[in-house]
């Protein structure tokens, strides 16, 4: 078991946990945290899996992960702006469940 594989597995675990939380929770903030867990898991898989295949440190995939992290933080910030506006308008931290659609 090398480091790359271990962290790939960690990434898989994070993705699994994150997906569970993303579907299970209704609270918008909790779902956002869950999304970030999936994101972090994906980044771990990206680097761990690629480096496991290449057998060396892979700078290309690391650069991509840097891009990914920045995109993820932008997404989080955007979501927070929307959540806070929603909270302000409706006083609720979750979306109304519509069973119609």
């Amino acid at each position, binding site marked *: 078991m090398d480091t790359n594989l271990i962290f790939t597995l960690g990434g898989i675990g994070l993705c699994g946990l994150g997906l569970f939380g993303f579907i299970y929770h209704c609270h918008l903030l909790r779902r956002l945290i869950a999304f970030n867990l999936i994101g972090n898991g994906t980044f771990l898989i990206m680097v761990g899996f690629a480096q496991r295949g290449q057998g060396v440190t892979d700078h290309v995939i690391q*650069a991509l992960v840097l891009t990914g992290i920045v995109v993820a933080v932008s997404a989080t910030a955007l979501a927070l702006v929307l959540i806070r506006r929603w909270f302000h308008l409706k006083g609720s931290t979750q979306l109304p469940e519509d069973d119609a659609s």
Partner: protein
Amino acid sequence: MNLLIDLTLLTGILAIAATSLLSRSLFQSVIFFILLGLTLALGWIRLGAPDIALAEAAIGAGITGVLLLDTLGHLKKTGKLDKDEHRPSYPRLLLAILSSVTLVVLLLWAVFHQPTPAIQLHLLVEEALPDSGVSHQITAVLLNFRSYDTLLEVGVLVLAVLVGLALQTDQHQQDSLPGLPNPLLHACLTLLVPAMLITSMYLLWAGSDRPGGAFQAGAMLAAAFILLHLSGIKLSAQLSHRMMQFGLLLGFTVFLVVATSSVIGGRPLLAYPDGGAGLLILLIELALTLSIGLILLSLFTIANSPPLSSRSGGSNGH
């Protein structure tokens, strides 16, 4: 020994993630999420990715954490934090477990049948590195080989701010949080902020041959700005609205101008002129650092300022 460290980190990461996800208190969840970011930074070091470790600590844990905490504080203040959080339904739980297990099984299956990649991109990177204008591979990838991705990525950042601004009718709105009137904090800040600025500049400079670069430097800068902001020194109030906008867009604009000038010069988009790569990359990075710092600060302040309760109507008026 290394194996032991790795396994400990793995267990730690998963345990912290699970706690963050399932903790009954939202505050605890956020704290554990930040902790997860820091632990992951250690993991990144183990994976030989100090650049990501820096970014993860500064952006993944730092900025994201601050944003989450701040929102949490806002929610808490109105006292409706956990009240309306009814427990999710049973079918939802089932769906969540099923999808999550399916995903994990699929990924495990994929990971354990990994073929040997036919293409070794890192060889190409090493071969092209001397022509890239920088000696650090990640910077070369980000700002030369795959600079187009980075350009769009900065676009994503700008766009996030733009959407935030579009949702605010009055951009000069002061935020509701009072500054922190703690004299001790002030004293600390006077020491901390210059140190952070210097670190930021170092990270930017280091980017050309060592771990570091515009994003980490920008995040550090943003952290300093946010600290200043919290202590009552409001950059957005100091700078005029127009200046702020220029600052936000500076990095993207410089990047775009450099990209376009190469087309006018008869080269493909984003291609640097011979020998000028290093300098231009540094120029772009400098502008990017400032802009990223301001963008992250703006994202924080936008999220922070309360939206107007009565919007000016007439969404389809003429």
